[in-house]
């Protein structure tokens, strides 16, 4: 195909991407937006294959690899449980980062092999996309490990960690300087740059707690976008420049929006090491006190005698896959004339909006879901707040205890309801690793057990009343 037509196709793809992001701003048009982005991507990929520089000898390799990748990607994308979406996005983002780094490595080796020294722009963007792509790759894999609970979700910190990170950054900068200015391209320096960037990705994400992973993934998503955009300079390719630039910038805005929803600054998320102060006041004050435990039958009687119930679903409900049982219970209560609402914390689940997706999966009507600002004024008039597998997002310490790692995070004021029923597996602290005094207050009762079993039992008990 005439190279000009290829560029026109890239322009078309770029317009599709921009309109797609615009459509993704509203729930009504979001799905169409995603389709539009798919269409743009398909056009860009087909146009690329018509580039005369693609050697027909390699077509077999290209076809086979794309087919394998598409098959695995589609199956994994269809099969992954809705509860595992955050780690899936982390994994896919890491693979994108790896792809950028591979493209940069190829370009570097190619130039080295031919003995040509690339123009400065190309040299600089090769180094930058290698560094950013590698950080994104290893950082995302670590985030995946934390969310998948292959690694402890708690922040992993050690003395001198910040110093190590600073040293790594300086080392990478020094290597880059050496590669670009002093010695010129050498394979050893380039591979060292690769390795140091991978280590920086790991050691940068390690001290960040599991509860903050969504912000980290969003930031690394923006990184991969930037890296892809830089690879656009390397290959002088407008599809990469625009697609990467768009994602780099919009990913950054999204990251800041997420921080705002948690009432934190990005610096606090990245370097605050939430949870490192776990052993402060709260925990010791709770030592020796026992929560009140209720049987599912007691809980059913309490619920059936109330006029208004607010259900607060958390990640515990999601892992137990209990959303269907919760809906069944809510339907029964509503049939008995109880007013039922769902309170959705901005970061309920493990990502903003994650809980909405899970409840939508269980066919919970949208108009029963209330956001934090809407529901908090209603708690004082609520008879029962039913907290299912949520912990940090209902911890009253966030309101007043300045020593608490979650101080300042907006929470759902369930403690203001007349009675709080908490369904929880055990008294273990939540994802942020913080104790919760709510469980010991006078108006709170606990129903221990997996959310799924407890909800089914309460439902059954309601039938037998």
């Amino acid at each position, binding site marked *: 195909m005439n190279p000009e037509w290829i560029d026109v196709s890239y322009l078309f793809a770029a317009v599709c991407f921009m309109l797609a992001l615009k459509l993704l701003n509203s729930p009504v048009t979001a799905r169409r937006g995603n389709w539009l982005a798919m269409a743009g991507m398909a056009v860009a*990929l087909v146009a690329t294959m018509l580039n005369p520089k693609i050697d027909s000898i390699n077509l077999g390799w290209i076809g086979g690899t794309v087919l394998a990748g598409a098959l695995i990607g589609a199956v994994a994308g269809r099969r992954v449980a809705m509860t595992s979406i955050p780690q899936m996005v982390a994994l896919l983002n890491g693979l994108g980062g790896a792809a950028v780094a591979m493209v940069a490595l*190829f370009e570097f080796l190619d130039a080295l092999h031919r003995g040509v020294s690339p123009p400065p722009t190309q040299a600089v963007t090769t180094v930058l996309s290698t560094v950013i792509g590698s950080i994104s790759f290893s950082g995302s894999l670590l985030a995946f490990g934390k969310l998948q609970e292959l690694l402890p979700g708690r922040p992993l910190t050690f003395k001198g960690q910040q110093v190590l990170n600073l040293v790594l950054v300086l080392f990478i900068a020094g290597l880059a300087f050496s590669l670009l200015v002093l010695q010129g391209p050498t394979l050893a320096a380039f591979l060292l740059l690769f390795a140091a960037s991978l280590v920086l990705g790991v050691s940068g994400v390690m001290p960040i707690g599991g509860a903050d992973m969504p912000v980290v993934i969003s930031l690394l998503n923006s990184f991969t976008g930037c890296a892809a955009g830089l690879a656009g300079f390397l290959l002088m390719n407008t599809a990469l420049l625009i697609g990467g630039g768009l994602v780099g910038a919009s990913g950054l805005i999204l990251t800041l929006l997420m921080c705002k929803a948690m009432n934190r600054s990005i610096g606090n998320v990245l370097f605050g090491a939430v949870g490192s102060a776990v052993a402060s006041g709260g925990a010791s004050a709770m030592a020796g006190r026992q929560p009140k435990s209720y049987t599912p039958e007691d809980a059913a009687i309490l619920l059936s005698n109330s006029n208004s119930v607010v259900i607060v679903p958390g990640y515990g409900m999601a892992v137990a896959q209990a959303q269907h049982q919760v809906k069944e219970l809510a339907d029964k209560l509503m049939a008995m004339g109880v007013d039922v609402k769902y309170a959705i914390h901005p970061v309920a689940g493990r990502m903003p909006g994650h809980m909405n997706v899970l409840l939508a999966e269980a066919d919970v009507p949208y108009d029963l879901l209330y956001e934090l600002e809407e529901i908090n004024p209603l708690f004082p008039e609520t008879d029962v707040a039913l907290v299912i597998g949520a912990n940090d997002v209902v911890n009253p310490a966030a309101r007043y205890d300045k020593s608490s790692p979650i101080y300042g995070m907006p929470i759902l004021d369930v403690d203001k309801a007349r009675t709080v029923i908490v369904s929880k597996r055990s008294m273990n602290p939540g994802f942020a690793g913080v104790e919760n005094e709510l469980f010991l207050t006078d108006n709170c009762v606990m129903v221990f057990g997996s959310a799924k079993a407890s909800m089914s039992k309460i439902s059954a008990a309601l039938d037998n009343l």
Partner: protein
Amino acid sequence: MSLIAVVTVFILAVFVGLEVISKIPQTLHTPLMSATNAIHGVILVGGLLVLGRADSDLMLGIGVAAVFFGTLNVVGGFVVTDRMLEMFKGRKRGKGA
């Protein structure tokens, strides 16, 4: 393409990216992250271009890795995003939006 033209394109893309995300409801934060994640899979274009001119086993290996990772990023990303957004269809928002 001249360098200055390339820089212009990139900077304009960054500004569009900054502007296009405005007051999106929290409900859409996860799908939006997932969709932008799929869009940066456009690096697959770069992967195809390098694999297309690989001329040794080593380069072929690197190119195959780039294309494989890029394809997973694109296809997996779009499929997951669509599954999430599928669940929003036909329902009314509680307020606003």
